[in-house]
């Protein structure tokens, strides 16, 4: 029974990506908000979009995780696993909804905040302005060396190498294109810098400070 969520998640993930008719149905619904064209004082124009960064909620990997979590909860609840576990652990059974709110809010707010910051930086042209500025003063090989440092700075400020990649990947790609450097290598350097910073700080790279706090019960 302990393997049930993993089996279910594997079946859902494989099924929704391999069964073509099902995949097509799930991909039909897209969702996104319109945003207007943005022009910066430097003359950069970011074109508007009818559905900015359109999301396909039913074919998104998160949908599979949500369905798996819900089905697992229904099955375990119907079989009385939670009440039996409370008896075994000699603790009162905690409400699943309260536990969900307590853990989800603490970890979601920083993630929502840096995703918004990354979107604002991208759509307002800040990434391009930064990229043009860096490419104007840094020789190609100096930037190739320093791209690692951008990953370090990103991981230091966000406490997570994944967050660092979300924030600075667009910037790194733009500079790599301007300098005619291999994008994959520059992104690898960015990612390696983020991981190195997390390792040096003794943090868990993928969960960052928030994941560590959760594990320590803070």
């Amino acid at each position, binding site marked *: 029974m302990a393997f049930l969520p993993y089996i279910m998640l594997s079946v859902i993930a494989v099924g929704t990506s391999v069964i073509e008719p099902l995949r097509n149905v799930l991909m039909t619904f897209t969702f996104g*908000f*319109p*945003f*207007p064209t943005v022009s910066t004082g430097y003359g950069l124009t970011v074109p*508007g979009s009818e559905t*900015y960064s359109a999301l396909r909620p039913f074919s998104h990997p998160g949908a599979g995780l949500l369905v798996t979590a819900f089905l697992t909860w229904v099955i375990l609840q119907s079989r009385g696993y939670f009440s039996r576990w409370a008896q075994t652990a000699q603790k009162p059974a905690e409400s699943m909804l309260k536990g969900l*709110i*307590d853990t989800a*809010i*603490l970890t*979601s*707010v*920083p993630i*929502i*905040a840096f995703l*918004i910051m990354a*979107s604002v930086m991208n759509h307002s042209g800040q990434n391009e302005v930064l990229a043009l500025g860096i490419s104007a003063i840094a020789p190609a090989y100096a930037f190739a060396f320093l791209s690692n440092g951008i990953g370090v700075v990103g991981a230091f400020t966000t406490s997570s190498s994944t967050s660092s990649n979300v924030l600075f990947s667009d910037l790194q790609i733009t500079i790599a294109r301007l300098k005619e450097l291999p994008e994959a290598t520059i992104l690898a350097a960015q990612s390696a810098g983020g991981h190195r910073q997390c390792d040096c700080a003794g943090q868990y790279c993928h969960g960052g400070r928030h994941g560590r*706090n959760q594990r*320590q019960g*803070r």
Partner: protein
Amino acid sequence: MQRLFENRVVYLSIPFLILPISFPLISIGATGGPTFLWGLGLVALFAGAMIPPAQRLFFLPKAKLNNPQSPRSQS
């Protein structure tokens, strides 16, 4: 206000709710909807972004101030 900012889940619930609604408000206000929604979204975005650092600056629990290494009393 002080008690509100001492409970981490409670004060983080505010940005948790207002940050996700700020972008739809800005989108609607900036693309043909009522113009005031644009400003409302911007206020929601700014308020949501400022609440966590404001809590750290102005409402940090005294136990944490006296001993920065100690775990939070309310978390």
